[in-house]
């Protein structure tokens, strides 16, 4: 187990390194020159050159990357070109907001998705199943920004049930979390349903029935834990989806998370911030996968042994 963990950690580190390398190459191929942007409109070429030198932008790319990695290993994500301050605190300050949003969104999607998925599987091919599956497709087919705008318009602007924008109270959290949750709930409902259908057809479920176990208990105690495995394996992918969704949702609801930060940084070609956010997202995804690997043994003793 410990060995497995160590190996997975090493893998995670290598993946992060790869992500860093790709982002780095991509970003430095950008047409916009951050030094020009920083120097402003009245700058002399001399100033631009000075700035470029100080940012290390005049060094060969591999050297820049090496420096970047060395600093990264010391927990230093560099300094924002635009905000002239260290990137790490900027991201850290915004991370709680994104994590809160993500936690709430995941809670919503899992709650809705799990419940609907289980119900649909149990009532397979019935009217309820059709309804749930169609709804789940509507969920995954609706553009997130449309959901966001719609919720904003109806529940905040018109009905005034929730604040339109901002951060702090649970009421602020509802609309953005629901926006994020709806998409995921659709996916989860489908995954849970197909996993459940699979499990419900297994021999051990029949065994449980043959023992006279009440139907509800068969579903919840015997089938569900087995169906959770594929759901848990989704965590990593799910976090990736969230990170992407966050860019849109945080923008609409003025949620002070790293999605918003990333979007601003992209507009301003603030490379260190883009790199930082990408890395943090990748880290989240990798950690999510790691988490999935760590949770799985608790649910499935077969993996525990391995």
């Amino acid at each position, binding site marked *: 187990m410990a060995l497995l963990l160590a190996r997975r950690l090493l893998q995670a580190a290598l993946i992060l390194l790869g992500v860093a390398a790709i982002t780095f190459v*991509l970003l430095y191929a950008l047409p916009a020159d951050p030094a020009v942007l920083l120097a402003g409109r009245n700058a002399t070429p001399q100033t631009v050159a000075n700035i470029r030198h100080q940012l290390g932008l005049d060094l060969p790319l591999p050297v820049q990357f090496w420096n970047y990695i060395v600093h990264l290993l010391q927990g230093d994500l560099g300094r924002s070109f635009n905000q002239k301050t260290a990137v790490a605190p900027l991201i850290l300050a915004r991370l709680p907001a994104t994590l809160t949003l993500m936690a709430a969104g995941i809670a919503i999607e899992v709650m809705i998705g799990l419940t609907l998925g289980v119900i649909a599987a149990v009532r397979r091919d019935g009217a309820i199943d059709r309804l749930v599956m169609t709804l789940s497709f509507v969920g995954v087919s609706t553009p997130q920004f*449309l959901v966001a705008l719609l919720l904003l318009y109806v529940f905040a602007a018109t009905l005034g049930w929730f604040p339109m924008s901002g951060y702090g109270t649970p009421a602020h959290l509802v609309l953005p979390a629901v926006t994020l949750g709806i998409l995921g709930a659709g996916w989860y409902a489908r995954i849970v349903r197909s996993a459940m259908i699979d499990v419900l057809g297994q021999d051990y479920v029949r065994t449980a029935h043959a023992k006279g176990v009440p139907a509800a208990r068969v579903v919840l105690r015997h089938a569900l834990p087995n169906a959770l495995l594929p759901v848990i394996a989704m965590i990593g992918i799910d976090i990736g989806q969230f990170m992407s*969704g966050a860019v849109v949702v945080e923008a609409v609801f003025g949620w002070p998370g790293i999605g918003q930060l990333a979007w601003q940084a992209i507009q301003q070609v603030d490379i260190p911030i883009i790199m930082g956010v990408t890395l943090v997202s990748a880290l989240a995804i990798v950690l999510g996968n790691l988490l999935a690997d760590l949770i799985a043994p608790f649910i499935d003793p077969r993996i525990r042994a391995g």
Partner: protein
Amino acid sequence: MSAGSLLRALVRRPVLALALAIIAGVFACALLAPLLAPYAPDDQIFDGLSLDGAPLPPSAQFLLGTDTLGRDLLSRLIYGARTSLLIGLVANGTAVMIGLAVGVIAGYFSGLLGGVLMRFTDLMTAFPALLLAIVLAALLKPSLWIVAMVIAMVNWVQVARIGYTETRSLSERDFILAERAMGAGNLRILARHILPHLVPTAIVWGTLGIATTVLLEATLSFLGIGVQPPQPSWGNIVFESQSYFQSAPWLVFFPGLAILATALSFNLIGDALRDLIDPTQRGRD
């Protein structure tokens, strides 16, 4: 399963029939846009704006209203179907092709080559997709084809994973072993015995993926890095008008509905296809 019985099976479910009708409609719009559209899509009609520059709500003259430049929304949506479908087909086709190629090669040659490919796929999975799309789109000055390629670059990963798993399980099947026992080379096994089995997967992902693609194009446009104006795509129509969702709701509602309906229809059809041609459901009896 013949195409005819497939079609019959699809049509038996009313929701699916509706989905098929919608897709057919969208394709018709795309193909016959010049015939169907009442106006040119980028004609900024002088009467299309109110005197103080506001877009016009739906009326007899402009069935779905006009946009903020006085263009006919219906015409733009009809032409937009072209762009969105084109991106859907091209981007997704490319994604499926790349994904299958990577997945199949990695799954079949499970040694170093496969390992490297799968690690690369892992890496791409860890990459926040939208961020990657945004950076790529910013990097390569957006055009329809670039947007399609960017989406393909982002979407192939999932297909690769599926292709990988399927190839792995196929490679363990006895008939592949039998082929090898007969002396068949890798190329022959790949081309004649693995790829044909992945056709259903490719079809299913081909349809399911179009939905994702249309959505992603819309999202890229929403973030302002999609198809370039004045060429209409559903995504950039919504994008151009998103802030008007209160003052001119039709500008957001109709294209939004088009995206939703199309994505939903493709999803439903892809899902039904999966049920119908899933190889695990076939044969045996």
